[in-house]
């Protein structure tokens, strides 16, 4: 069962086309995160689901019903806003129950449902307070309470954590994920923060320039991206991109061949993506060498940036704390990688899986890669 379906949706503001053509299916009960850099149109997509923004063409359906022309309040959805958008002149209880009041529900039922939502979110003691008397985290929970109380089919979250401090953000992240498991509704969550996307969701849709580049499980998005933009956006520190050359099956990096694949393409240039954890220090001569220019020690792991010798390229690699003594600034290091970890993209950024090594083709791993 699909909760939200976009079919051929476009959106333009005046003459600016922000969503060229969107087809998206969000499964019922899933936690889908729309992630992308600011200005990519992710909030617009969310607001179109909410009905706060009209579509220029195409249809949107929620739970099998076409809602394209319905009012926001009759779509069976609820939204949590970035600024929480609580009514400042109302108490917490009034804020939570206001939608029900406008929906003309009996007073006793409103009170009961408000209390229920408040208990779920541990707000029982704050019901008589005004928003200004609450902390950021409490306001956040009131905003979620206002959504829960409507018992919607779909919850929409528009960057709800961006106004919280770092510590509270981690805690609220877990709370929202728990809430999703408990009430089993569909959650659609917009963020520009890839950590939120990776940790909370069961599906991630990576958006850029108004189109969805890939929509998959977080592990697939990270380990097996279809597009170089997805690979570059997800992952911190950023993935290393190196130019490689392909000539009749031979792959070479900076003039050194490192593998052979069964391909008949004559001569062409590609881009190779290597996650920082795919690179490691090599005692003998690895494929890459250069000098360390910056070290970031995160305690459990260390990231070091290396300017490659004779190349205008900087790569980042992950080292274990035990190797920290090798990572002094300016030190010359040699790096190696396992070619099966390399992702290969063409010049347009599209993934070229046919040119990659896989565990199933061990023979093609070049012998001189391991240091």
């Amino acid at each position, binding site marked *: 069962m699909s909760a939200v379906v976009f079919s051929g949706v476009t959106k333009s503001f005046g003459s600016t086309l922000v969503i060229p053509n969107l087809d998206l299916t969000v499964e019922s009960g899933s936690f889908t995160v729309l992630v992308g850099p600011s200005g990519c149109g992710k909030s617009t997509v969310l*607001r179109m689901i*909410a*009905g*706060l923004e009209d579509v220029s063409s195409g249809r949107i359906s929620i739970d099998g019903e076409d809602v394209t022309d319905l*009012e*926001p*309040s009759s779509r069976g*959805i*609820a*939204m949590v*806003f*970035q*600024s929480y*958008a*609580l*009514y*400042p*002149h109302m108490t917490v209880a009034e804020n939570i129950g*206001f*939608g029900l009041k*406008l*929906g003309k529900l009996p007073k006793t039922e409103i009170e009961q449902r408000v209390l229920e939502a408040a208990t779920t979110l541990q707000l029982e003691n704050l019901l008589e307070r*005004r*928003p*200004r008397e609450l902390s950021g985290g409490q306001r956040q929970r009131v905003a979620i309470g*206002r959504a829960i109380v409507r018992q919607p089919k779909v919850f929409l979250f528009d960057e709800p954590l961006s106004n919280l401090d770092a510590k509270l953000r981690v805690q609220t992240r877990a709370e929202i994920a728990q809430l999703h498991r408990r009430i089993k509704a569909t959650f659609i969550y917009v963020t520009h923060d890839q950590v939120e996307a990776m940790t909370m969701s069961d599906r991630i849709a990576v958006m850029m320039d108004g189109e969805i580049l890939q929509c998959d499980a977080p592990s697939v998005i990270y380990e097996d991206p279809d597009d170089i933009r997805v690979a570059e956006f997800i992952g911190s520190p950023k993935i290393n991109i190196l130019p490689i050359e392909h000539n009749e099956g031979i792959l070479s990096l900076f003039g050194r061949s490192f593998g052979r694949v069964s391909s008949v393409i004559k001569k062409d240039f590609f881009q190779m993506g290597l996650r920082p954890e795919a690179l490691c220090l090599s005692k003998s001569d690895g494929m890459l060498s250069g000098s360390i220019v910056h070290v970031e020690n995160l305690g459990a792991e260390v990231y070091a940036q290396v300017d490659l010798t004779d190349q205008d390229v900087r790569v980042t690699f992950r080292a274990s704390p035990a190797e920290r003594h090798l990572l002094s600034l300016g030190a010359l290091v040699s790096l190696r990688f396992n070619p099966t970890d390399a992702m290969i993209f063409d010049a347009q950024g599209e993934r070229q899986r046919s040119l990659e090594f896989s565990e199933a083709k061990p023979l093609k791993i070049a012998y001189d890669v391991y240091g």
Partner: protein
Amino acid sequence: MSMVESDTLQWSLRKENKQARTAWGLTAPALILMILILLLPVAVAGMLSLTNYSLGNAGFDWVGFKNYDRLFSRSTYEKMFIATFTYVVVVVPISMGLGLGAALLVNSIGRLGDIYKTIYFLPVMATLLAMAIVWEFMLHPTIGVINQTLEVSCGTFLEFIPFLAYGCSDGFPLWLGDRDYAIWVLCFIGIWQGFGFNMVLYLAGLTAVHRELYHAAEMDGAKNAWERFRLVTWPALGPTTVFVVTISCIRAFQVFDTVEAFWPQGGGPNKSTYVMMFAIYEKGVQQNLIGIGSAITMLFLIFVMFLTLMQRWLVERRVHY
């Protein structure tokens, strides 16, 4: 042990004393200036209001509350109160409503709004005294543009409007010279001149309304613009409204320029526009009756003080969330 304790105690007391002296020393200039130029004049006015002093007289007699007694017993002052309160009660709500309406409209139209903003603000920037003279020309009973325009309607179907029919047969109002119209003309000019100022205040207030609140209201089921206004805009404008009401009231109490320009002698036909500020001027300056002038001034101050305290109370209790 106790010696030591009393020593430290004395030492800390001395230190406190020294700090207090320094603090007083530093605040003294501001304090003295404030007393000299703000509080002392009020006190002197309060004192003079209990005398029959005239400027140039060698001495004066204490008359107790006779001046105040006069304010509440003579018909001239009754007219003064009626004129002042009529003006305040008419001008404040209307200029506030128009200001809010204009602000909402200007706010909703984007770039073109700047032009409207400037136009509506023009009367505020103009000198009221100069504008009053223009109004006087326009309102002239025979050669004024207003009555001439009204005369055009004579003989047309528009005559079914009683006001026009009456005007065509018996002559149009004298406006400034007519005791039934004078105060309303005064109010009209006051509104015309003042609402642009309220609009600017409301525009500033509107910038503080968060856009997401409107979306939240829409999600909650507030379907039309009126519901969204009632639910989001109006509560958010609470502090602005209190400020606008207070400042408009004070400005309305202070109306003087137009009255002085239109009726330099005596405050309008049958004293129908004899507002407080003009009365203070007439008694205290023109007629050199400092005692009664001061009494009106004190009363004026009490009204304004009352309004200001009301604002403080409202702001603290009601409208700040």
